[in-house]
């Protein structure tokens, strides 16, 4: 199965949006998702801190705003965007609740993808005495940008606590194929569409 730019979560994310929608992509990297969405008729802006990524995003012809993620949303109005995306980044953000609240302030809904630490291979790695390393968790413990380690159940628990509603959920295995059962065990990457109401 081939996926857009080898990012199967992009397929899912793009599938949840329609032409004409506005999108804010937090931690947009070189702007691959924004480029894809713009080709599909969406209007997008990205927030990115790393100068190399920002330059690549400008080269890609997408709108990129160079800013620290955790401070970058303050200037935007309530419900400024139809969607706010945070792909494979939530685990790197220190103030988790704050960013979730901000995403759902500036966006009508938020789309979040993250590596599921409870994926069975990750569990095996820990059982065998080592921190997990995989396509979805491609770092060693000493060089990882990840600061928060959580599972799908953990995330859903936090959403509950914050009054956030899960509108849709897609779970992928390491090869990008859809997981249909035992999600928190068989899912390597989780993609959520969340909002303040159903």
């Amino acid at each position, binding site marked *: 199965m081939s996926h857009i730019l080898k990012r199967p979560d992009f397929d899912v994310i793009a599938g949840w949006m329609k032409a004409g929608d*506005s999108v804010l992509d937090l931690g947009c990297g070189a702007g691959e998702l924004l480029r894809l969405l713009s080709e599909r008729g969406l*209007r997008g*802006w990205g927030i990115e801190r790393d*100068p190399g990524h*920002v*330059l690549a*995003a*400008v*080269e890609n*012809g*997408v*709108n*990129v*705003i*160079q*800013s620290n993620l955790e401070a970058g949303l303050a*200037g*935007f*109005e309530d419900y*400024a965007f139809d969607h706010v995306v945070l792909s494979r980044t939530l685990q790197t953000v220190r103030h988790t609740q704050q960013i979730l609240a901000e995403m759902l302030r500036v966006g009508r809904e938020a789309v979040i993808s993250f590596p599921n630490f409870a994926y069975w291979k990750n569990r095996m790695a820990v059982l065998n005495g080592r921190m997990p390393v995989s396509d979805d968790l491609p770092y060693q413990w000493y060089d990882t940008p990840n600061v928060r380690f959580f599972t799908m159940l953990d995330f859903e628990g936090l959403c509950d606590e914050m009054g956030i509603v899960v509108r849709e959920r897609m779970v992928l295995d390491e090869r990008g194929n859809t997981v249909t059962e035992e999600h928190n065990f068989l899912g390597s990457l989780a993609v959520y569409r969340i909002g303040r109401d159903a």
Partner: protein
Amino acid sequence: MSEHGSIGPVEAQRLVCTEPITLAAGITLQSWELAYETYGTLNAARSNAVLICHALSGHHHVAGYYPDDPKNVGWWDNLIGPGKPLDTDRFFVVGVNNLGGCHGSTGPSSINSATGEPWGADFPVVTVSDWVRAQAKLADELGIAAWAAVVGGSLGGMQALQWTIDQPDRIRHALVIAAAPRLTAENIAFNDVARQAIITDPEFHGGNFYRHNVRPTRGLRLARMLGHITYLSDDQMAEKFGRKRRPSAGSYGFGVEFEIESYLRYQGDKFAGWFDANTYLLMTKALDYFDPAEACAGDLAAALAGARAKFLVVAFTTDWRFSPARSREIVNALVKNKHDVSYIEITSPHGHDAFLMDDHYYHAVVAAYMQNIAT
């Protein structure tokens, strides 16, 4: 980027306009002139023209050099030329000296045909919108229906922004660099101290110093020294000068003792030797008046609602005259309107003057942005 060459020898040109222009101040110039330069070639579709707007002390000599004065290199030559970020192999680049300037365009030191004497104090205060209208006239003369881009730093960036509001169909991209949507009280305060230094110089003669064959160099020098402090950063000054003293300096007196004093006095003297005091007053006043949101009850997003250009907004971390937060105000207003905008915040020690410096990341971003502009 392959070649990083100079555009080479260039020549100033002159637009003589006999169509009157009525300025925001209510005064009409019956005929007026703009000094300008062009680099590169206007393509057949006339779609590759880029206007460079200058800041407070700038002018039309933006790139290249004059054959009879090879050391007189354009003020943004590090950015503009063949193979440079603003590539003259692709773009037809136009530099212009604004109305009120002192480099060949009609200004206070020009002769007022009504009196046969220099305009002096009678030259009207000009605004950024006035400049945009005059620049649009130049575009007409050059056969440019719409600029591929208007580019400017500081007060020049404000002109680029004003273009998107006043002439939305004649600008496709705006590069707004080290600018602000309006001056703060602190900014205006600095400008007024500079103006007071000039106006209170006994040789200013109410702006009509020309007829006395003198120049208010003391005031102009102080104005420039003050301005210069605000264009640098504290860090950079500390690193470059610190508390270093001149080897020959005495002590317990008021002569030149610290290196920073020597530097500032040198900069002040250099500037006062050639710049027109009335032009300095006009330029600072244009800065103070610039506030496109004013017509929309302070709502910048409303002011930019009709803009159709795409934007690149650039700010520098140590710029405290027009800080990154001020550029973010522009960005937020643009995003609110769902306009296309990229914002780059460049880590630089050089304060406000960083926009003139050759910084690898800064120039790479400008090059990448320009590369994506269709011609």
